[in-house]
């Protein structure tokens, strides 16, 4: 039993790193723009299809495809912010919510038109390779996904800490008006923050592809996970998202083993409700 638990911890943590990357973009966007991107999962789906197409047509490895996906998704997010989000920033929440829901509807159904409802995945040489340490397995694609996710999150945190634009983003998240008075170009910074958030979820899609299937509604599956992580992590704390991602990864591993993999969403939701009741500000949120 002890060995099973250690194995579950390994799997859970590896998955959790990926989940952290998946949700950190959502956290960043909420922290800075104060809107929840309900199309988050659909952006993930698009990136998975993009990585799939790059693999199918050019034989490009999904991990390598990051060099395409990161800039493309950044620009994608930047453009969406300029066209749809910016005009709604001072509107009632209702308008913001349904704008991104509309986007999600369009994305997932365009994908349905183009790719039909089939499940697709890619077969890489390392897809089924495991590293073996004594009695424990470490799946190579999961390990790579984990390492890439952690590296990207670290890069993002350094970027926000060290660069001028990064500081501007953090300043906006703290106090919109004061940041404006300090001469920060608010609209450009918002678009950049949104672009970065979308690039993060794009990266998550690319590294997720070798581990999972892609289909038009795959987004809704992962957006639930991302939402729970954001709330658990405390709405707008990036470090909180990282830790919450790891925790959710562990919970998924354990509930999959001890309860049922089919009920993992139910477990998330129960967890979600409990967080709301007992710690509404999340693990790292300030009151």
């Amino acid at each position, binding site marked *: 039993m002890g060995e099973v638990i250690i194995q579950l911890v390994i799997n859970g943590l590896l998955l959790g790193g990926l989940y952290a990357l998946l949700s950190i973009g959502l956290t960043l966007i909420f922290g800075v723009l104060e*809107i929840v991107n309900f199309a988050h999962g659909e952006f993930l789906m698009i990136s998975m299809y993009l990585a799939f197409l790059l693999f199918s047509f050019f034989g490009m490895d999904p991990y390598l495809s990051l060099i395409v996906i990161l800039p493309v998704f950044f620009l994608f997010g930047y453009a969406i912010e300029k066209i749809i989000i910016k005009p709604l920033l001072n509107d009632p929440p209702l308008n913001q919510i349904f704008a991104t829901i509309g986007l999600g509807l*369009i994305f997932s*159904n365009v994908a349905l038109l183009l790719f039909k409802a089939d499940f697709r995945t890619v077969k890489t040489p390392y897809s089924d390779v495991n590293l073996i340490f004594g009695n424990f397995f470490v799946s190579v694609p999961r390990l790579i996904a984990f390492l890439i996710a952690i590296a990207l999150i670290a890069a993002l945190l350094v970027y926000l800490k060290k660069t001028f634009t990064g500081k501007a983003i953090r300043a906006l998240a703290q106090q919109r008006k004061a940041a404006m008075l300090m001469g920060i170009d608010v609209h450009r910074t918002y678009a950049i923050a949104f672009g970065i958030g979308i690039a993060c979820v794009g990266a998550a899609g690319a590294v997720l592809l070798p581990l999972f299937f892609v289909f038009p509604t795959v987004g809704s599956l992962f957006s639930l996970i991302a939402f729970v992580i954001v709330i658990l992590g405390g709405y707008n704390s990036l470090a909180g998202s990282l830790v919450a991602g790891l925790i959710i990864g562990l919970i998924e591993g354990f509930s999959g083993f001890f309860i049922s993999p089919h*009920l993992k969403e139910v477990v998330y939701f129960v967890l979600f409700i409990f967080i709301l009741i007992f710690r509404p500000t999340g693990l790292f949120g300030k009151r």
Partner: protein
Amino acid sequence: MKAYLTTLVESAKRFRKPLIALAVVLALVIPLLPRNPFYQDLIIMIFFWATLATAWNLLGGFAGQISLGHAAFFGIGAYTSTILFLTFNLSPWIGMFAGAGLSMLVAFVVGFPTFRLTSHFFALATLAFGEVLRLLASYWRELTNGGVGLLIPHTPGFRNFIFDNKAAYAYVILVMLLAVLCVTYIFKKSRFGYSLFALREDQGAAESLGVNTHRAKMYALLISVFFTSIAGTFYAQYVAFIEPDIVFASHVSIQLALLSIIGGIGTVFGPLVGSLFLTPLDIFLRGWLGGVFSGLNFIVYGVILILAVMYFPLGIAGWIRKKIAGFEKAPALPKVTPADPAAGPDALTARRAVMGAPLMTVDSLSKRFGGLEAVKDLSFMVREGEILGLIGPNGAGKTTVFNLISGFIPADQGTIVFNGKDISSLKTPHCFCRECIGRTFQLVKPFGHMTVLENVMVGAFACTGHTEEARKESLAILQRIHLSHHAYTLASSLTIADRKRLELGRALATQPKLLLLDEVMAGLNPKETEDIIGIIRSISRDGVTIIMIEHVMKAVMSLSDRIVVINNGIKLVEGLPNDVVKDQRVIDAYLGGAYHATAGLK
């Protein structure tokens, strides 16, 4: 043209009741007209979606709580009645109410924790909830038959809620639609409707006016869920087949919002209008295009949704209402005897002599925010009928004191006794309002999408359940705060001075014994300040006790009977105005050495 339209609008208003009756009669005849099943189905679907969307709108539009999980209650309704019918042969007419009961129970349990979330996260939580129920319904095969779905055998009969004639279904759903429309219509005009609008606009302000926001949201949710659930039963009986991916689908929830937004969110008839336009489009898209390009209808919805929220957020009914408002004559305002001119100092002095017992006694109140001690061991007392000035430098903790004694933040320590009753343990601001403590906010919080009169009526509803009474009361108050000419203006278009007046009027409408005024004169010009001083004086003369935070020293000096000065969260000095301003500590901490020179006080 304009004159013609004005007459048209006026006569439409005069014949409102006959017009509504005519519409109902028309609706009753419509199901009988078509012989073609396609059109019969179209009519049923229009009524059906209108019922669901109207129910959704009560929560999403009126109360501003955007639920993306209403499919869950739709599904519970459909599954409960169907399972009871198939297993126990229980009539769906009864099963319908069993399902509604179950839905309301689930809604209560889920709503309780989720209502504390802000709008975006409430939407998110409900979306997650809907998804989880869909997964549960697919997973729990013993009960729901999983993804295979449940088929209701065709055994016509009234008892079985199964009919051969489609017109019968049309009448059933029409009755449901009329019921939900009636409920919405009645709510809109009632105290409950005003509470919902108020909490949608600003929860804090609504609480301060005595609205139990949590309870109001819960009622709106439960009523909304009830109708959603019975419409679920209707759907199951009409289509005779249900499966989790149909009745629990998240796009059902989105569809309800879409209809409300297009038709006019927050209006009574908006969702019906939305359904009249979009349901035929939906059937067309599914029928002709859905077969060829599956998903195309949702792409169209997505585009409509984005365009609507970006360029047409009022919706059809909202837009019409706005246009009509332009042609409406403002109703004549009843004449109320104007308040006397501001009383002179003599009257005030005379009143001071009769000042009564302590009304509120605050004892060693403390509040700490992390490392900052905002209020430290503060004690003071205000007598009945008194005007107490609360002054001190910015950041001294004045507004925190107000927040503590109006229930907006809990104190760490200390007691508040009001009117002989210990109110320190009261949890929410509306309880403080019920105890007759009214307040205004330094950063004004008007209910922007409501008229000035409606704003004040929310306050008046703290004391009366009658709409007409509240309206009369509020009109009198508007006169008193010199805002009558703006009674039918939207609060969002007021100037800052008028917003401050509105704050005052709204709080006054709750008929407080103690009124807390937080910088009602900040940002006003001297003439406006004079005006407000006069208003405050007249309020005080009516026996209302006042604590005012103010930086305008001229006003503080001329109004206050006593002054409490606080600095860094502790009480510095307390005393008569003329003594306080001469105190060296007050001069050092707040007034500055130049005060006496400029104010010309000796």
